[in-house]
């Protein structure tokens, strides 16, 4: 370990190290964040949910979006996988269907950032725990 020699160096060090704690910090106050849930049951994974999740996580990090990405079990829309549910603070949850990497980015750019709705929204008629 190299020595930290000034307040500035400590600040830089902190910035480098922050990322690993980011998801923990965010989960500490989930109410104020956009909650994104990717359906990751067998059906979801088979149709590429993992790649979609990776893309979402990456973009959120890069664009510094106040959001957390979690996975849920099957939401019951196996025909429309991969599905992604987005819950913005103060809004009802919205479920997007047939999400691929491109659509994932659109969800963030259009719906999350600007509140524009996209195609492929499913009626939310289920409950999760």
């Amino acid at each position: 370990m190299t020595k930290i020699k000034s307040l500035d160096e400590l600040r830089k060090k902190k910035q480098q190290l922050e990322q690993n704690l980011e998801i923990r910090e965010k989960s500490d106050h989930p109410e104020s964040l956009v909650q994104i849930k990717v359906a990751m049951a067998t059906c979801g994974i088979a149709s590429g949910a993992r790649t979609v999740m990776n893309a979402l996580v990456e973009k959120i990090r890069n664009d510094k979006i106040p959001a957390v990405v979690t996975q849920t079990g099957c939401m019951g829309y196996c025909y429309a996988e991969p599905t992604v549910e987005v819950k913005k603070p103060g809004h009802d949850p919205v479920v997007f269907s047939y999400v691929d990497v491109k659509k994932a980015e659109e969800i963030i750019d259009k719906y999350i950032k600007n509140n524009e709705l996209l195609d492929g929204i499913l009626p939310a008629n289920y409950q999760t725990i």
Partner: protein
Amino acid sequence: MYKMQLLVCGGTGCQASASATIVEKLNESLKAHGLTEDAQVVTTGCFGFCEKGPIVKVIPDNTFYTQVTPEDAEEIVTEHILKGRKVNRLLYENPETKEHISDSKHMGFYQKQMRIALRNCGFIDPENIDEYIARDGYSALAQVITELTPEQAIDMLKQSGLRGRGGAGFPTGLKWEFTRKYTADQKYVVCNADEGDPGAFMDRSILEGDPNTVIEAMAICGYCVGATKGVVYIRAEYPLAIKRLEIAIEQANEYGLLGKNILGTDFSFDLELRYGAGAFVCGEETGLIASMEGGRGEPNFKPPFPAESGYNKKPTCVNNVETFANVPVIFLKGPEWFNTIGTEKSKGTKVFALAGKINNVGLIEVPMGITLREIIFEIGGGIKDGKKFKAVQTGGPSGGCLTEKHLDTPIDFDSLLAAGSMMGSGGMIVMDEDDCMVSIAKFYLEFIVEESCGKCTPCRVGNKRMLEILEKICQGKGDMDDLDHLRNFAYVIRDTALCGLGQTSPNPVLSTLDNFYDEYVAHVKDKKCEAKQCKALATYTIIPEACTGCTVCARNCPTDAITGERRQPHFINQDLCIRCGVCYTKCKFNAILVQ
């Protein structure tokens, strides 16, 4: 980049139930399923909910798994991490509604808590200084030593209103100012990690879960009071805390956050550990210093206070672990912020070790001014087995018992004192209708007699005499004069003992005498113990209708007090009965009545 993290509790409680193996198994399982890029396992400090440990918390969805075994690791990975399905059977179950609660934020145990001193416990890996730095660790130290004069820093601390968490609640900023005032070629900062109250374990948890925060605060203290050396006095019975402290000190030294010319300034600070053998009296600061110097753990008369003449006769600032744990945040968030939390004269939060006849046992941190009712019935989830609340003991062996009538008092240093108890280190033991208050007072006095160093007569002899009286009462041999004697002894010891141990030792007796006088009278006059704890006061009789005449009681009675024909109801001769209770435990037909 990890998408999920599995925080596994590595506190003493959870480690005792194999949490280290859980970490191993989780890692194996992640590897087997090719998930090592997605999820990371982190060993953290205590979550506070030790009773339901081992705890595994999954981030970012805050899923709180309780009583996890190494065998559950595979299921957590294949179900939760791989498929996003929570493992229901491991979720916390609300004892009343039987409903599974997944998010720890929705658990009654956590809802009213506010974590300042414990902010990093159960959140970061205590063996990795980088995680502490990522949480603004050492920023307070850096700011203080590069941007503030010691006087300015002390002023901020005074403004914050922080008072010592070691028991007496002395204003911390003022203590630092006193220590600064004395000039000497060497001064010391001492962290009191003796934690002598048998019911408390917050200091251990802080050191195990976030050792760096204590180190940082001690360095800040060193800068403020003008000390270049710090010593943590810690009981040798805390091996895990010692190990984590050692790791943290080594890492801080490697980063240059301890040692010579910290962050390129003129300020240097070194830290070492000193082990105590675990005597209650060594938690008293002058006793602690005597023990640090290699002498017997015997307190000295104050003044001079350690701030003037302490370790090696040099000015020494002694603070408690939890006190220190509050310091860095105060500098980061500002004294005004700290000032908004708590009551008028007690700012901030206090950590309590909640134990006894309560549903949720564990370590909690709550804002000062919360009521006992909120702690016991909301955070603690109420009394076990639906029994009736009787009393709550706060402050350990130096404290007292509070009752129903105190349930709605906002608690802080001063209100607890006014109610005849004290904050102490934050032990909180809840009692129900089955607890005998005379026996409780006796229990604490036994502890005191055992732990008194013997240097002064009031404490050494007086407490022994008080204990003898209590024993007499519990045996049904007490009379009303004894109750007056108890009080007289208590006042003399309180007023004349040398150190805090003796001065506060009568508290458990006095507070039970005040709040449960009738119970003492019942023991003395009616020879009755309502809670049925004092065996000698019980009468054992046989219910003829229930007795089958199996002869088991008669065969086991050590004094042959039980007679009767086979298959006929038996009978206990009260003159021969020594009230040992053997018949009660041996009878298979619930035919023995205890009154």
